[in-house]
């Protein structure tokens, strides 16, 4: 492969041991720390999810008292969104693989990168420790005013929740600056616009969204902190919809912040395991960018029943539905990538196919509930809970596991056990559908979300019981994953390129050396690793 020799920076001689991790500015170590942090919060928030399911397994249960239940679902949502999914896909995969995939030795601002991580971790720990010690918010993750005002939520937990979110927000904003600069200025020679890998495109779009959406949430959080502690009147002088607008201006794009990187991961995995290039790569890139832009124009669909003007409702209904078009373009391009390929059903591919199959359901239910009249029925019901779990579990979590099975061999240099991986996939697929599919029906039968218990006799018993059983099957599937992780220690070595990958990270050793590339590669197509493999073949 063509390459340019640029002396390896002095930093190549890194410190080892604990200090090596605490003081590191290496994007790979920071990426791994993000992943470990995010996964810990995944386990914690997952346990909270199990508690919710135990409480709701049958009517009139007293397993959790109502207040504890409310605190539990608040932290479940907060943890899964802000402390697991976003740090995992943006901080974890983004940090580790974005520089590798563009042939860079690190991100543009390594020290700022470390700062982003530590401040995100700080925000997360503040919230988590306060939760464990009993200072808990019970205002749900959307924290609507006036419920989250001092009058109705006088607890310290509410303030800590707000401050924790501000901190993680600052962390992810700075991280976004870093990624954008890195991709703009540090690509390997020859990596022109259309040769940038799909995952990197997804991260660029995501970073731009983080950069423009997060500060609005930060402003809203600051205003609420001021309302609660310095008796300002932002949300009492105005009607409560000011909070709703500012909150959803961030939190709807946040859905795309969580799902776009995962779509990027899937766009990397499907071609590799089908031995074909990504079908319509340009169309996929354009659809990514369109989703990023349209993602900013849909937030009011969360407020269709809170009292907005009918004309505005029609506008936001339209923009919300329009997002289905670029999303559909992606789905069909992924299917066309597999069509006529040579499909190898290794675990990463299974997880990616699981993503595709489940995300479609979440996407379709999203279009249905975007219709204002339908929304006036299903808003805040378990239908919505089902919908966003199909997007964020069926979509994001399956995609995250696809990424882990695909890239852990690169990160740690060892191969996962395929049989355990497949068992994990099958159990998680079954458990996921058992848990969340019945919720569509529960919602249509009139079950609202965020209720601590329900009466017998409204026909909700069976669906809830099935959902609870499913949740434990998901937990079991995660145990299988942990066994697989523990077995990594003695697993066979991965080598540079166990999957016949397409992107630059597969041209270097696993795990990659501190400086990534001994020689900066020169890129000649959108599949540099494929090119190298082809050149090595005897003609």
């Amino acid at each position, binding site marked *: 492969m063509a390459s340019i020799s640029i002396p390896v920076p002095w930093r190549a001689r890194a410190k080892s041991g604990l200090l090596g991790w605490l003081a590191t500015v290496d994007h790979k170590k920071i990426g791994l720390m993000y992943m470990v942090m995010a996964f810990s919060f995944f386990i914690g928030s997952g346990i909270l999810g199990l508690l919710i399911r135990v409480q709701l397994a049958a009517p009139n249960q007293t397993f959790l008292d109502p207040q504890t239940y409310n605190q539990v679902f608040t932290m479940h949502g907060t943890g899964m969104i802000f402390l697991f999914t976003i740090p995992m896909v943006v901080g974890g995969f983004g940090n580790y693989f974005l520089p590798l995939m563009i042939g860079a030795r690190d991100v543009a601002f390594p020290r700022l990168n470390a700062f982003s991580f530590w401040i995100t971790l700080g925000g997360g720990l503040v919230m988590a420790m306060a939760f464990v010690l009993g200072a808990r918010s019970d*205002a749900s993750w959307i924290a609507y005013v006036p419920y989250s005002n001092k009058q109705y939520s006088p607890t310290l937990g509410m303030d800590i929740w707000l401050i924790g979110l501000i901190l993680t927000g600052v962390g992810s904003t700075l991280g976004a600056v870093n990624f954008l600069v890195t991709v703009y200025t540090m690509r390997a020679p020859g990596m022109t616009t259309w040769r940038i890998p799909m995952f990197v495109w997804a991260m660029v779009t995501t970073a731009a969204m983080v950069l423009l959406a997060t500060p609005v949430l930060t402003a809203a959080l600051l205003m609420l902190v001021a309302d609660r502690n310095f008796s300002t009147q932002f949300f009492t002088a105005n009607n409560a919809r000011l909070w709703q607008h500012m909150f959803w201006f961030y939190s709807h794009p946040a859905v795309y912040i969580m799902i776009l990187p995962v779509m990027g991961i899937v766009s990397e995995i499907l071609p590799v395991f089908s031995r074909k290039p990504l079908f319509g790569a340009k169309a996929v890139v354009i659809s990514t960018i369109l989703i990023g832009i349209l993602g900013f124009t849909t937030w009011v669909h969360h407020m269709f029943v809170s009292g907005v003007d009918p004309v505005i409702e029609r506008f936001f209904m339209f923009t919300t539905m329009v997002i289905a078009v670029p999303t559909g373009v992606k789905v069909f391009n992924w299917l066309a990538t597999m069509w006529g390929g040579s499909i190898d059903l290794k675990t990463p591919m299974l997880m990616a196919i699981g993503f595709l199959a489940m995300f479609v359901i979440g996407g379709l239910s999203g279009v249905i509930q975007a219709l204002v*009249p339908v929304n006036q029925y299903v808003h805040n019901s378990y239908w919505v809970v089902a919908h966003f779990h199909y997007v964020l579990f069926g979509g994001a979590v399956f995609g995250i596991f696809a990424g882990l099975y695909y890239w852990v061999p690169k990160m740690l240099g060892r191969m996962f056990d395929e049989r355990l991986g497949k068992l994990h996939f099958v159990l998680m697929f079954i458990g996921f559908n058992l848990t969340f599919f019945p919720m569509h029906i529960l919602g249509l039968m009139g079950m609202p979300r965020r209720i601590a218990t329900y009466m017998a006799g409204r026909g909700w018993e069976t669906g809830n019981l099935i959902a609870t059983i499913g949740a434990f099957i998901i937990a079991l599937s995660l145990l299988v994953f942990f066994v697989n992780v523990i077995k990594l220690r003695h697993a066979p070595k991965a080598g540079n390129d166990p999957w016949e990958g397409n992107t630059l990270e597969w041209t270097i050793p696993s795990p990659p050396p501190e400086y990534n590339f001994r020689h900066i590669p020169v890129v000649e197509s959108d599949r540099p690793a494929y090119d190298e493999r082809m050149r090595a073949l005897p003609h």
Partner: protein
Amino acid sequence: MSMLPPVTEDARLIKALYDLVFWLAVGVFVLVEGLLIYSVIRFRRRRADELPLQVHGNRTLELIWTIVPSVLIAIVFGLAVDTMTRMTARGTLANPVAHVHAIGDQQARRRVEAAQPVDMVIEVIGRQWVWQYRYPGGDVITTEELVVPANKNIRLDMTAADVIHAWWMPQLGPMIYVNPGEMSYVWFNVPPGEYVGQCNVYCGVAHANMIARVRALPQAEFDEWFAQQSAAASVAVEPGDPERGRNYFMNSACVACHYIEGTKAQGKVAPRDLTRFATYPTIAQVDGLENNAENLRRWLKDPQSLKPGTAMPNLNLKAQDVEDLVAYLLTLR
């Protein structure tokens, strides 16, 4: 995968739209999952060294799967807008009813009143954690259920006393938020029957207990019921019955916050365990508020006036319920 059977015109319109779009979505679902499963089976790797044709894309296909979904989306959007314009509670397109407006916005209020002729207007107040219904005349106020005459045009004028609530009666038509400081409206006309729904915006500890029930009676029966209620409102209450009080306690929002050993009341919000309530010297640890029937009555009717800032809300209990609760609570030793 179907909505509950609708009983109003609005609810029927919503369900018809949902059913249509649902089956459309099922069609797309079958297409995508079918292609996926077919590909996985048909194109599975058979030889380790096979290399399929390296297809990079196809302009025609791209156009097809951009344009066809766009057209579908446009059609569905048109259907939804059509449903919206037909939904009676929303007035006409030319004059959209501001169905939520600030209290005191007289212009919006006049538009609401002009929107539809109604036979009866009932004021609804959502508060943590009950729905309170105030009938015309102001004498009759109920909390457990909303009794209405069947087959009549009813309008609910709703507001919230504290935080945001939402009025969701799935069979009766569109859901709407009930905001503090604002008015929200619902119109319906229902056949005789009992319908159930509940508050659908998380509103605190006993959110789950904030059930809404609507009972529609034929006009004659309704008149009889209304006369009874009006009479009861002016008649003195009978002495409290501990058993009735216990029933009320266990089936209302009380249990969400209060703890009484060995019962359904397992709430942990209230600082004091009520298991031996009658043995406590004071009510709610308020200095000088001696624990006796009279003070307890005052406390239950308006806790905030005796202990400002207490987490205990004013539940707008009816006089009879207060008597029963007092009788019950004073048996807890």
